[in-house]
C-alpha cells in the first residue's frame, strides 16, 4: 500500500531535529531506519503529518568507547552493531541478540536506538538494554537528559521520549565479568519472539554468584525476572538452576493471543531462562 501524504524534513543537527519536531506538533514522527514505522504507514495504521528523518544528522552516527561504557549513536544500524569491534569486544550479549533480530534486510536498515524508542515489548533489544543497564540520552527543547533503561519503557509502544524529543544515543556499560546469552523463541525465523530471555550471569567455581534476567514479550514492557534473578544467585548445579529459572515468569502478565497463550509464554520463560543460564555455566 501507499502511505497517506506527509511532510518530510531532513535536519542535519540534533538541535534542528528537535526544533522541527517542536514546530510540527504532536503529529510529527521521527524516522531512523524505518523498519517499524514504514509498515505502519503503508498499512495506514499511522498518519503522521511530518516525518523527521534523522539519516542526515552526523552526530547520531558511530559507536565510541567512553570509559566503562560503549556509546551507540541513534543512527547505528543492527548491521553496524554486529560488525562493530567495540561491541563485539565489550558487549557480546548485544551482538548475539542483535544477530537474532528479524532478517538481514531489516538489520541493514533498522537501528538499535530505534528499536528501543519504538518500545515494542516483542522486540529483542529492549530486554537486552535492560539487563545491560543501558541508559538513554534524550535531546529535547529544554536540553538533554539521561534516562536509565529501567525507567525508559513506559507501556506497549510507549517510551519516555516525548513527541518533541529525540533519542540521541544509548550508553551501555561494558559487560566486564558478566557473561550473557539471549534465547529467542519464535514461530518462524523472521517472526517476533513469542518469548525471549536475555541472561547475564557472574560465576565463581561453577556457581552463579549473580544473575540478571531480562524478558522479551512477557508484558507490555520489557521486564526483569527478579524472583529468578534472586533464586539464581548461589545456584551451583543444573537442578538448582532449573528450579530458579522456573520462577522467571513470576509477577509477569504476558499476553494471551493467537500466537501463544499466556500459560505457554510463562512456561517458555522458565525453559528459556534455564537454557540461557545453563549455556553460561
Amino acid at each position, binding site marked *: 500500500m501507499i502511505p497517506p501524504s506527509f511532510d518530510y524534513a531532513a535536519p542535519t543537527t540534533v538541535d534542528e531535529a528537535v526544533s522541527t519536531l517542536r514546530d510540527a506538533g504532536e503529529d510529527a514522527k521521527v524516522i531512523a531506519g524505518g523498519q517499524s514505522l514504514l509498515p505502519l504507514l503503508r498499512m495506514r495504521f499511522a498518519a503522521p503529518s511530518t516525518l523527521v528523518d534523522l539519516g542526515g544528522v552526523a552526530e547520531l552516527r558511530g559507536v565510541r568507547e567512553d570509559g566503562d561504557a560503549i556509546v551507540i549513536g541513534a543512527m547505528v544500524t543492527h548491521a553496524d552493531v554486529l560488525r562493530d569491534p567495540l561491541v563485539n569486544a565489550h558487549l557480546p550479549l548485544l551482538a548475539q541478540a542483535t544477530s537474532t533480530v528479524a532478517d538481514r534486510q531489516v538489520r541493514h536498515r533498522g537501528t538499535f536506538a530505534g528499536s528501543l524508542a519504538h518500545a515494542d515489548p516483542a522486540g529483542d533489544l529492549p530486554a537486552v538494554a535492560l539487563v545491560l543497564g543501558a541508559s538513554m540520552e534524550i535531546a529535547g527543547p529544554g536540553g538533554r537528559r539521561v534516562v536509565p533503561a529501567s525507567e525508559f519503557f513506559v507501556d506497549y509502544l510507549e517510551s519516555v521520549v516525548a513527541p518533541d524529543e529525540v533519542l540521541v544515543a544509548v550508553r551501555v556499560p561494558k559487560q566486564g565479568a558478566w557473561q550473557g546469552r539471549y534465547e529467542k523463541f519464535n514461530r518462524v*525465523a523472521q*517472526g517476533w519472539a513469542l518469548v525471549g530471555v536475555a541472561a547475564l550471569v557472574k560465576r565463581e567455581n561453577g556457581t552463579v554468584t549473580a544473575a540478571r534476567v531480562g524478558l522479551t514479550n512477557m508484558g507490555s514492557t520489557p521486564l526483569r525476572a527478579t524472583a529468578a534473578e534472586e533464586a539464581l544467585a548461589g545456584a551451583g548445579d543444573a537442578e538448582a538452576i532449573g528450579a530458579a529459572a522456573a520462577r522467571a515468569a513470576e509477577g509477569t502478565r504476558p499476553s494471551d493471543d493467537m500466537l501463544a497463550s499466556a500459560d505457554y509464554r510463562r512456561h517458555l520463560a522458565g525453559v528459556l531462562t534455564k537454557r540461557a543460564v545453563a549455556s553460561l555455566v
Partner: protein
Amino acid sequence: MTITEVGSARRRKEDARLITGRTTWTENVTLPGMLHLAILRSPMAHARITSIDVSPALETKGVVAAFSGRDVADVQGALPCAWPVTADMVHPDRPPIAVDEVKFMGEAVAVVAARSRAAALDAIAAIEVDYEPLPAVLDMEAAIADGADLVHADKGTNKGYTWVFDSAEAGTGGDAAAALDGAEVVIKRRYVQQRLIPAFMEPRSVVVDPTGDAYSIWSATQIPHILRFLISVVTGTPEHKVRVIAPDVGGGFGGKLQVTPEELIAFVAAKRLGRPVKYTESRSESLVSAHHGRDVIQDLELAARRDGTVTGLRVKLLANMGAYMGLVGPGVPILGAFMYNAIYKFPAYRFECSGIFTNTTITDAYRGAGRPEATYAIERLMDELAAELGLDPMDVRRRNWIKAEEFPFTTVCGLQYDSGDYDKATDRAMELLGYDELRAEQQRRREAQDPVQLGIGISTYTEMCGLAPSRVLGSLRYGAGGWETASVRMLPTGKVEVVTGTSPHGQGHETAWSQIVADQLGVAFDDVEVLHGDTRTSYKGLDTYGSRSLAVGGIALYNACQKVLDKAKPIAAHMLECDPADLEFTGGQFRVRGNPDGGKSMADCALAVFAAHDLPDGIEPTLDADAVYDPVNFSFPHGTHLCATEVDTETGRVTIRKYVAVDDIGKVINPLIVEGQVHGGIAQGVAQALFEEAVYDADGNLMTGTLVDYTLPTAADLPSFVTDRTESPAPDHPLGTKGVGEAGTIASTPAVVNAIVDALRPMGVNDIAMPCTPERVWRAVQGGAA
C-alpha cells in the same frame, strides 16, 4: 531425432528477467490516461448495508469516479462457477461488489477511480457505509444444524451440495459399510485440514483497456484463456472483442485459478469510464480476499484385518466453501475423492462430501487441490493402523500397496493407474534416510527419556496429474474440457516460435518446451522462443494448474513437432532429389538413410518454404503446425517421502532433522526444474504441517491478515532436502513424463505429522491438530504425559 536437450539440467531461460523483475508484470503496465482503482472492503463478516454514500470520495483531489454495488447492480454481472458438482447444487449469485449484504470480511463494497493510486486510497477512507450486523456463520457443523443462521437467507440452507461416490454403487468395488461391519479392526479418526492461504509472491493485479468496442485485459492470472471465455459470457461482450494477456505472473499455486471480483470490477469501471483502469491489491487485501484453500473436516473409518490388510474405507467430509462457490471450489474435494485409496488395493470405499457455506472468504484450488487432503488422511490412518496392531508402519503399507507387476491397475475408484514401482522408491528412500539407524536412535532416546525425542514419518503417496481427459471431466459435471494445444512456427532463418496454451507463472515452460523442441526439430535450445499467455497469439488453451502443462501440453507440443517434421520431409527430399521414404531425421538433419553427408536441416527447409521458389508440386508452402491433445488418462506419479523430526518436549518445538523425497514422475525433461518443484512443494506441505493457518475469530474477522500472523515459513525454517528419483515412464506420453507440480505438497504434510506423532506416541499422543505449533505439541506432551 537425437536427444541432447531433454534430461539436461538447463538453467531456466526466463529466470534472468523474472528474478531481476525487469519484465512486464501486470502492475507495471501503464497506459495513457489510465486511472487507478482502490476498493473499499467490508470490515464485517456478515451485515446488511443500510446506507452507503460514495460522494465524499469524489471530493478528494484526483478522484474521477466512485461507485457502490448498488450503482452498478444491473451491469456488474455475477462471478461464475465452472464446476456445479451436482445437478441441485446451491449456487448463489455472487456480485463483484456487494449490493445489499456483505457476506465475508474483505468483500468489496465500493470502488474509487482516481488519477493516482494514492488519491484512490485516500478517497476510499471517505466513503460512508452503515452496516447492520447479521449473525456470522463460521462453524461448519453448526451451519448445518437445525435452526442455524444462514449465509444466504433466500436459499434456506447452508449446505451447497452433497456428492457421493460408493464403490458398490459404481460397480468398481465392494460395500464399505459391510466391510466396516465385519472388520476385525476399525480405525476411526477425525482430521481437520486447516484453512490455508496460497500467498503467491506477486499480488493480484488487473488492467483493463477499453478501445472502441473491444477490451484488452492484463491480469496476474493462471488462466488467461478461461478468463477470456468467462469474461465474455459474464459481461455479454463478444468473445472476439476480448483479449486477455497474462504477462509474466509471479506464482499462483492455484490461488490465481479464479475469475475474480477485482477483474470484473476493473472491467465494469473501464467500460463505465471509457478509460483504461488498473487495480493492484496490497498484501493485506490479498490475504483477506484472494481465495483460500483446504478447510475440510474429515471423518474417516478404516476397516482392516489384524494382519494389517485394509478391507475398506469410509470417508465423510465437510468442505468449507466460504460465502460463495468459487470457480472450481465445489470440485476441489471431488478431485480428492479418487485419491483416498492412494497406492493401496483395498476392495471397498465410500466417499461423501458436503460443501458448506460460511461467512468467510471463498475456498478454491490450492496446490494439490483435494489430493493433499486425501493423502494426509490415508497416510495418517496407515500409521494409526500400524500402531493399533503393533506393526511397523512401512510393513503395513507394503502389505497393502499395488505391486509393480500389477500395473496397469484399476482402483476401487475405477481409475486405471498407469505405471509405478512403490517398492523401488521406498527402498531407495529408506536407504537415503538411514531408516534402521534412526529407529535405533529413536529407541535410545526413548530409553534415556531424552527431552528431545525422535520421530520418523512416512508418506507413500500417489497423485493424479495431467488434468484431464475431457470425457472424465464431463462425467464429473466440470464445465470445460481438459485438452491442450501447441503451435510450432518455423521462421525463415530456422528459428522457432512455439505457442502454448498453457500459462506458466513460474514453472519454467519456456525452458522445458525449448528443450523438447530442440530435440524434436534438431534446432538449438536458444533458437526456440516460447510464447504464451496472450489470447491474441495463443488463442486457444486451457492454461496451467493440476500438474497438467507438461503432462498434457507437452504431448500437444510433441505432436505439433511431428507434424512439422512430416511437412519438412518431402521438401528436404525434393532438395536432396530423393524419395521421402529414403530419408531419416538424425542429428538435426534429414539424410538419405546410410549416407551421413549432405543432409538438410530444418533451417534449410524453412528457408526453402519461405522462398517457395522450388517446392514439390502442390505442396503448401509452410512448415507450421498446430496440435490439440486430449489425454486418454490421468498420469499417476508416486513416491516415498520420509521425515525425521526432533521434538523438543520441553518447548514443543519440532525440528526437521532429515527429509528424504524419492519421487517417481516418469521421465524428466529438466532435472533442475523438477528439483525446484519438489523443494518448493515440500516447503508448502511442511508449512501446512507446522506453520500456516488462516484463523477467524468468533465474529468472522480474519486474524491472520498480515504475514506477521500468517506464519509463512522461509528457507531459514526448513532443512536441506535429500531428493532422488525412480523412473516409471508414463505409458500414454510419448516423452514418458507425468507431472511434478504438486507432488511435494501432496506428500510432505503427512510425512511431517506422522513423524511428530511417532516421536510422541509412547507418551500417549496419537494426533496433533495442524499446524503442529510448538504450543500444540507442548500441550499434547502435557496431556499425553498426564
